[in-house]
């Protein structure tokens, strides 16, 4: 019986390790595909732009609410570039992607987007245009207590 403990423990570790690669909420497969492309900042700007457009389509036409969870996760963890410099082309292009993602959030008006947007407006980790877009998105949140 004791011999079973170690493999079981390793199995749990492995499962939890894989689980960390995904955001805590479960995304639909389509959204997850685009999320993966956007998550890796080394992917080309064009590929990530296409993925962002796909997410927008999934949200607007596919009515897929998990798009919001995916974008919130991306903005909080992948596109929060500390020491952001506009002169750095790679960082600047990533920030343009962040701006497009914010514009998708803007369409939702969902209060769940507030933490991600607040994180953008307080930190100097984004271009001015991105910060202003985040403020615009905050103003468009449809708060449930109103």
């Amino acid at each position, binding site marked *: 019986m004791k011999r079973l403990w170690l493999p079981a423990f390793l199995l749990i570790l492995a499962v939890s390790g894989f689980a960390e690669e995904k955001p805590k909420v479960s995304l639909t497969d389509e959204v997850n595909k685009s999320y993966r492309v956007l998550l890796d900042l080394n992917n080309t700007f064009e590929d990530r732009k296409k993925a962002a457009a796909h997410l927008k389509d999934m949200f607007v036409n596919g009515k897929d609410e998990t798009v919001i969870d995916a974008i919130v996760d991306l903005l909080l963890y992948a596109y929060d570039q500390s020491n952001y410099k506009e002169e750095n082309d790679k960082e600047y292009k990533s920030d343009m992607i962040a701006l497009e993602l914010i514009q998708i959030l803007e369409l939702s008006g969902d209060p769940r987007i*507030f933490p991600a947007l607040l994180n953008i407006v307080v930190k100097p980790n984004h271009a001015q245009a991105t910060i202003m877009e985040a*403020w615009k998105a905050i103003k468009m949140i449809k*708060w449930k*207590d*109103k």
Partner: protein
Amino acid sequence: MRTKILVMAIFGMMMMSANGFATDYVPEDLTIGGGKQSLLTLKEQFFKTSDRDQQVIIVKTINKHTSTDKFALLAEIVEFDVRTDKLGNFCHPDAVLIALEALVQTKDPKWETIYFNLINKYDNTKVRMTAAKGLALIGSPNMVPKLVNMIKNELSYKNFREDNQKMVADDMVVEAIVMALGEIGDPRCFPALLEIVTVQNHRFQTIQAAWNAMEKLQW
């Protein structure tokens, strides 16, 4: 060349402020709803950082919240450093001042102990003066004995000198307390005010404030 760079820098700064792109910018027409949940988000974000601009933006955003629960959060921020009694401040004085100004406007007596503790322990003159203004707006006589003790003993210097920064800063606080005592109008502060105008170990402004306060006492 240097002058050119300086002129360009000043022009740049003017342009930034003209566009409203200050580093602690928050839109004027912002409204935050969402009740306790969004306040919790703001609180978590505030205590993640000790950066001045970030803290100021968050406090300004809290001020834009629609719920009156925001005042409890502002009070928590205002008294954080005094309550934790650590060396150095975690909350930037500029953020504390903005939060305090919002609290003071409520004229709510439940914050008077916080104001007193700030006057007594905080190390920023503007914050201490605003806290005194808070007590004045409340107008509660509860704090009079403690305030009198403060101006007679803790903030009084026998050999007051205007070239001593600490003495001058403390005296600016005394001036604010004296003004508060005038607004409260409780005659128990008369001996302390009389001492200020007779002994004259204060700035001219403080002595003038003591005369004005005496006129306001409700005998």
